[in-house]
C-alpha cells in the first residue's frame, strides 16, 4: 500500500491542447479517492498518467514517495480495472487472474492460493475454468477486479468500472467495491462520471472540469461547502438551485418582480446591492409557514414530480425556477401557489462572473 501524490500535473497533446492543467492532490495511504467530472474533463487522462499509460507532460507523480514519471507501467506496481474489462479472451478466468503473477515468477502454490482467495472473495470460484466469452458483464467485471486483487499492488486504479453494467448490478457492485476497500484497506483511485457513485464510495473526491481541479475534499464538505458553482451544480441530485439575486436592506430581489422577505437583523456575509448567484439545496427549501429568521416568499408550482418517498416541486420565482424536495404526503397540484422558506445558513453565494463562492 502507498500514498499517491500529484504535483502540478499537466497533460498536453501535440504541445498545445491542454487535457489536464496543473492538478495537485494527495491520496493518503489506504484511502479511496474518486476523480469525478463530466466526460472530457480529464479525469481518465489523469488516472492513465498515474497508471503509466499516458506520459506526463509537466509536473510530477509519486507513488509511495517515489517519483514514477519515467517508470513504465509494468514497474509501477499498480493494478487497474478497465471499463470494458480488458480480459484476455483466449485465457481462462484462472489464467487471466494468474497472468500478472506468472509474469513476476510467483511460485505456483502461491498463485493457486491467491487466485483461490480472490475467487472466494468475489464469488467467482465456479467460473475459474471458463473463458471470458462465457461470462456475463457482471461476472467479467468481477474477474477484472480479481485480476487486480491477486497482484496485491501498491495502488488500485478503477477506470469507470461500472459504466457497462445495468442499473441494479451497478448498485450491487458499488456496495461490493466499498466492502472490498474496507476489507483490503488498499489505496484506490476510482474514476467515474456518476456523482452518486463518487459520493457513496469516496473518502475524498476530486471534482474536475475542463482539465482543472475544482475541489478536492471529503464528500460531506464537498456537498456542504462547494467552492464554486460547478461543484455546487455537479454534486447532488437534483443539483443545487442556483438563482441570480440582489440583496437590498429589506429584501432579496429575484428579478421579474419576485422577491423574498429578508429576516430581521440578518447581516448577509456577502456584498449588498450587486448581482449574486445564490445556491440552495432542494432539501433546504421548506414549504409552508415560514419562521421569522428565514428567507421567505411565495411562488406558483409549475412541475410536480412524485418519486415515492418524496416529491420534487418546481417553483417559478420570477423568471427563475427553484426545485424543492417535499414530503410526498403534501398534496400539491400544478398551479398552486406555495409559501416557501430557506434558513439563511443553508444559503450559498457565488460570484456570478467567476463562479467562485464568497
Amino acid at each position, binding site marked *: 500500500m502507498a500514498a499517491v501524490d500529484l504535483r502540478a500535473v499537466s497533460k498536453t497533446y501535440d504541445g498545445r491542447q491542454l487535457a489536464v492543467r496543473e492538478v495537485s492532490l494527495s491520496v493518503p495511504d489506504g484511502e479511496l479517492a474518486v476523480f469525478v467530472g463530466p466526460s472530457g474533463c480529464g479525469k481518465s487522462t489523469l488516472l492513465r498518467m498515474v497508471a503509466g499509460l499516458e506520459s506526463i507532460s509537466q509536473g510530477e507523480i509519486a507513488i509511495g514517495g517515489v517519483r514514477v514519471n519515467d517508470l513504465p*507501467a509494468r514497474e509501477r506496481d499498480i493494478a*487497474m480495472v478497465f471499463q*470494458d474489462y*480488458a480480459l484476455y479472451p483466449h*485465457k481462462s478466468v484462472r489464467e487471466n487472474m494468474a497472468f*500478472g503473477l506468472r*509474469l513476476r515468477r510467483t511460485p505456483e502454490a502461491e498463485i493457486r492460493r491467491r487466485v483461490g482467495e480472490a475467487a472466494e472473495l468475489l464469488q467467482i470460484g465456479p467460473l475459474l475454468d471458463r473463458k471470458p466469452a462465457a461470462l456475463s458483464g457482471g461476472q467479467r467485471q468481477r474477474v477484472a477486479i480479481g*485480476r487486480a486483487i491477486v*497482484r496485491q499492488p501498491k495502488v488500485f486504479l478503477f477506470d469507470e468500472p461500472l459504466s457497462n453494467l445495468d442499473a441494479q448490478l451497478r448498485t450491487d457492485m458499488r456496495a461490493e467495491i466499498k466492502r472490498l476497500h474496507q476489507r483490503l484497506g488498499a489505496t484506490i483511485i476510482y474514476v467515474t462520471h456518476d456523482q452518486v457513485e463518487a459520493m457513496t464510495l469516496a473518502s475524498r473526491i476530486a471534482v474536475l472540469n475542463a482539465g482543472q481541479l475544482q475541489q478536492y475534499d471529503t464528500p460531506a464538505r464537498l456537498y456542504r461547502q462547494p467552492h464554486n458553482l460547478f461543484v455546487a451544480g455537479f454534486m447532488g441530485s437534483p443539483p443545487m438551485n442556483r438563482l441570480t439575486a440582489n440583496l437590498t436592506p429589506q429584501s432579496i430581489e429575484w428579478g421579474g418582480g419576485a422577491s423574498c422577505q429578508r429576516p430581521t437583523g440578518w447581516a448577509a456575509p456577502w456584498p449588498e446591492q450587486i448581482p449574486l448567484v445564490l445556491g440552495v439545496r432542494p432539501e433546504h427549501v421548506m414549504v409552508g409557514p415560514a419562521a421569522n429568521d428565514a428567507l421567505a416568499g411565495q411562488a406558483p408550482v409549475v412541475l410536480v414530480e412524485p418519486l415515492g418517498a418524496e416529491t420534487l416541486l418546481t417553483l417559478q420565482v420570477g423568471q427563475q425556477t427553484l426545485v424543492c424536495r417535499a414530503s410526498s404526503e403534501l398534496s400539491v397540484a400544478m398551479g398552486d401557489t406555495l409559501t416557501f422558506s430557506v434558513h439563511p445558513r443553508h444559503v450559498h453565494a457565488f460570484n456570478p462572473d467567476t463562479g467562485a463562492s464568497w
Partner: protein
Amino acid sequence: MVQNSHRPAAPPVGVFWWFVAPFALLTLVFGVWPIVLAVQTSFTASATALQPQAKWVGWANYAVLWSDPIFMNSMLRTLTYTSLAVFSTIVTALLYALLLQSVWIARGRLFFKVAVFLPVVTPDIAGYVVWRWLYDQSFGAINTALEALGLPLFGGIASTSTVLGAVLVAELWHHVGFYVVIFWANLALCDKGQSEAAQIDGANPWQHFWHVLLPQLRPALLVNSVYALIQYLKTFTVVAVMTKGGPNESTNFVSYYAYQLFDQGRYGEATAMATVLFTLILLLAGLAMRLQGGRRSQ
C-alpha cells in the same frame, strides 16, 4: 438507427445471378475446365493425348512418376523449399508489420509502407530479371560490392549451395508486402485495452507479443499461411526467369519439371505431375483450415 428503417428493399435474386454470371463463366472456362482436361490427360498416353481419341492408360503415367528419381527429388525439393519459404515469409511479414506499427518509425512510416508494397505491384518477371543481374557472377552489383569491401564472393544463382537462398530472397522481395498488408490490417484490429492490461500486469514487449498480440493475430496467420503454402508449392516464374531449374537440377521444382516435360511432348506425365501437385495443395490447405478452424471453436 434511422438509416436501417430506410434501407432499400433487397434486389430480386435474379439480379445477383446476372452480376455473377460473367465471372462464373470465366472461372468455369479458364479455371475449372482446364483442370478437368489436365486430370483427364494424365490418364492417357502422351503420344495420343492431343488427339480426339486419346489412348486410355489408367495409372501408367503415375507409375512412371513414382519410379522417376528426378520427379521424387523434385517433389522433395519443392516441399523443402516451400516449408522454408512459408516460414520465412510469415516471420518476415509479421516482423515488418510490427515495425510499421511501432513508434520507432513514426516519421518514416509512409516510406516503409511504400517500400514493402511497391515490389508486389511490380511485374514479377521484370523484378526477377533484375535480381538475376544483381546475382550475376561477373558484373552483378552484389558481388561488385562484396569485392569492393574485400568480403568473400556470394555464389548467388550460380552455385548449388546458395541458389535456393538466392531464389528465396528474390521471392520474398516480390511477395512479402502482400502478407504484411494482411498482418497490418489484423494488428490494427487488435484490442488496445488488452495491451494496456498486459502492460499493467507487468508484461515486457516480448511477453506482450506472445500472450496478447499473437492470439489475436490468428485470423491473419491462417490466411497468410494457407495462401503462402499454395503460392510456394506452385513456384514457377522465379525459376523460369532466373535459373531454368539449375544449377544441376537444384531449383527444378515440380511445376517447372512438369513444364519441361510438357515442352517435350510428354503430356501424360506432365499432367500427372500437375495433378499430384494440385491434390497435395488441396490436402494441405484443407488441413491448415481445419486445424485453425478447430482451434477457434474450442
